C-alpha cells in the first residue's frame, strides 16, 4: 500500500510536500564544513608547504617505517583474532541458549563504551610482569606489557565488538532451512559450515575485519600505556606523530598524518563497498 503511493507520485511533488530542505541541507553542509572539512583540509594544505624530498624523507625514515610495520601488522593480526573469536562469540550468542545471555550480549560493547585511557592503564596493569595475567605468563618466558605483543593485546580489545556486531544480525537472519537441507542430504557439520553457513556470513566477517582493522590503525589511548613506546620496537605511528608535535615539528607530524589519512580513507571506501555488497546479497537472499 504505502509503496504504491510513493512510487505513483512523482518525485518532484514529494520534494514540495516536506518542508525544510534548504534549511536542513544548508545547516548540515555549514556544520560539516566548519567542524570537519575545513579543519581536515588544513592537514593537506600544510603538507604543500613542504618540499617533495622533505615530505618523502619524513614519511620514509627508518623509525617511521618501523612504526607503520608495527601499527599495520598488529592491527591486521588483532582484526584476524577478532574474526575468529568474534565469529565464535556471535555464533554462541545467536545459536545457543544459556543463562546470562542478554548480559553477555550487552557487555560485548564494553570496548566501545570504555574510555581508551582506562582500557590502556588496565591492560598495562594486568599484563605487567607482576600483574594478574602477567605473572602467569612470566614463568613461561612470555612478556606482553612493554613489547609489541602488548600492542596486539590492546588492539584486540578495542576491535572486539566490530566483528560480533556485524556478524550477529546476519546470522540471526540466516535461514536455518538451508543448513537443515545440507545436513539431511548427508553433509557433515563441517561441510555444512564451510559450504553453507560460511558463505552466508563471509561478507559480514570481512566487513567486521575491515572495521576492526581501520579502528586499530588509528588507535592511541589504549596502546600507549601497554606498549612501552620504544622507538623501532614498540612505537606506533599515532604516538610518533605526538612525538613530532612535542618537538614542534608540525610539518613532520602533518606529513605522517597525510599518509595515515590516505590509508584510512581508502579503508573507508573499501568498507563502504563491502557493506554495499552485503546489502545486495541480503536483498537477493530475501527475494528468494
Amino acid at each position, binding site marked *: 500500500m504505502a509503496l504504491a503511493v510513493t512510487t505513483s507520485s512523482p518525485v518532484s511533488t514529494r520534494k514540495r510536500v516536506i518542508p525544510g530542505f534548504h534549511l536542513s541541507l544548508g545547516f548540515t553542509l555549514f556544520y560539516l564544513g566548519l567542524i570537519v572539512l575545513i579543519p*581536515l583540509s588544513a592537514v593537506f594544505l600544510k603538507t604543500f608547504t613542504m618540499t617533495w624530498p622533505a615530505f618523502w624523507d619524513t614519511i620514509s625514515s627508518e623509525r617511521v617505517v618501523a612504526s607503520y610495520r608495527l601499527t599495520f601488522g598488529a592491527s591486521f593480526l588483532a582484526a584476524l583474532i577478532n574474526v575468529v573469536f568474534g565469529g565464535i562469540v556471535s555464533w554462541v550468542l545467536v545459536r545457543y541458549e544459556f543463562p546470562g545471555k542478554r548480559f553477555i550480549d550487552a557487555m560485548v560493547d564494553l570496548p566501545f563504551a570504555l*574510555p581508551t585511557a582506562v582500557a590502556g592503564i588496565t591492560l598495562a596493569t594486568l599484563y605487567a610482569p607482576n600483574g*594478574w595475567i602477567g605473572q602467569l605468563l612470566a614463568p613461561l618466558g612470555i612478556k606482553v606489557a612493554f613489547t609489541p605483543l602488548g600492542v596486539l593485546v590492546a588492539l584486540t580489545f578495542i576491535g*572486539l565488538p566490530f566483528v560480533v556486531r556485524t556478524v550477529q544480525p546476519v546470522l540471526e537472519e540466516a535461514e536455518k532451512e538451508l543448513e537443515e537441507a545440507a545436513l539431511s542430504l548427508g553433509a557433515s557439520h563441517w561441510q555444512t559450515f564451510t559450504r553453507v553457513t560460511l558463505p552466508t556470513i563471509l561478507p559480514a566477517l570481512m566487513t567486521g575485519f575491515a572495521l576492526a582493522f581501520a579502528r586499530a590503525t588509528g588507535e592511541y*589511548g589504549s596502546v600507549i600505556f601497554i606498549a612501552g613506546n620504544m622507538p623501532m620496537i614498540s612505537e606506533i605511528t599515532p604516538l610518533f606523530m605526538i612525538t613530532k*608535535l612535542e618537538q614542534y615539528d608540525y610539518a613532520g607530524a602533518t606529513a605522517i598524518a597525510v599518509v595515515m589519512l590516505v590509508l584510512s580513507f581508502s579503508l573507508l571506501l573499501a568498507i563502504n563497498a563491502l557493506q554495499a555488497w552485503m546489502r545486495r546479497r541480503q536483498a537477493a537472499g530475501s527475494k528468494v
Partner: protein
Amino acid sequence: MSAISVQPATPVRRVEPPLSLAATTEPRWIRYALMLAAFGFLTLFLFVPLVAVFSEAFKKGWQVYLDSITEPDALSAIRLTLIAAGIAVPLNLVFGVAAAWTIAKFEFKGKSVLLTLIDLPFSVSPVISGLIYVLLFGAQGWFGEWLRDHDIKILFAVPGIVLATIFVTFPFVARELIPLMQAQGSEEEEAALVLGASGWQTFWHVTLPNIKWGLLYGVILCNARAMGEFGAVSVVSGHIRGETNTMPLQVEILYNEYNFAAAFAVASLLTLLALLTLALKALVEWRTNESQAPLDQIS
C-alpha cells in the same frame, strides 16, 4: 508430535527437542568447545579488565578512593569533562537531526558523498583529530597570529578541548537517525502536512515521537565518547593540571606519576559511566524491540 502419535498408549517420558532444532544442532562436544572458546575470550578481554579496574581502585581502601576523586584537580577534571560533553552533545544532536532530515526525507545529487563525509571523523585517528586544531589555532597555525593579537586562547585551553570533542563525536547521532528515518519513510509527515500542520508542528508532533528512542540511543553513545575521548583531547589540551585536564587526561597524569590508586579511582568513575551507557543502551534496544514487535505482527 509424530513420536507421540506412534505410541499413544505409553506416556511420554522425555520431551524430544523439535526436529528442526535437533537437526542443525552440533554434537554436544562442539557446542561446549565453542562456548568455552567464546566465554574464555570474553572473560580474558572483558571481565578480567573490568574487575581489575575496581580492584585497583579500592586497593588502598575507601578513604584513599574518596580522597582521590574529591581532590581539587580531580574535581576540576570532572567539571571540564562535563562542560565539554555538555556543549558537544547538544550541538551534534542538532546536527544529527538536521542531517537525518536532509538525507532521509529528500532526494538530491551527492547524497552518498554526504553520507561518507559525515562518517569521516570515525575513520580519522584521534591524534589527527587533535592535530588539525593545532594546525588551525596553534602558534604557527592559520589563525595563530590573529588569535594572539586579539588575546584569544583556543589551543591548550577549554575551547580547543570542546572543539576536539565535537569533532570526534560528530557522526554519532546522525548515524543512528539516518537509517531509522529512512526506514520510517515520510508518509506520516505528508499526512500531517496535508491536514494543515506547519513544518515545525509536523516535526515536533509526528517525527520526533517516532525517532525518540533512536535519538536517545545516539545521544547515549555520543556522550560516552565525548566524556571518554583521550587521544584528540590530549593533543589540544596542554595538560595543565586543574585547568585543561579532562578525566581521561587526569587518569593518564596520575598513572604516569605512579599514583596507581588515584588513577584507577578516577578510571573507575569513567568505567561506571561506560557500564551505565551499556545498561541504557540495552534498555533502549529492548524498548525499540517491544515497540516494533506489534508492528511486525500486523504486517
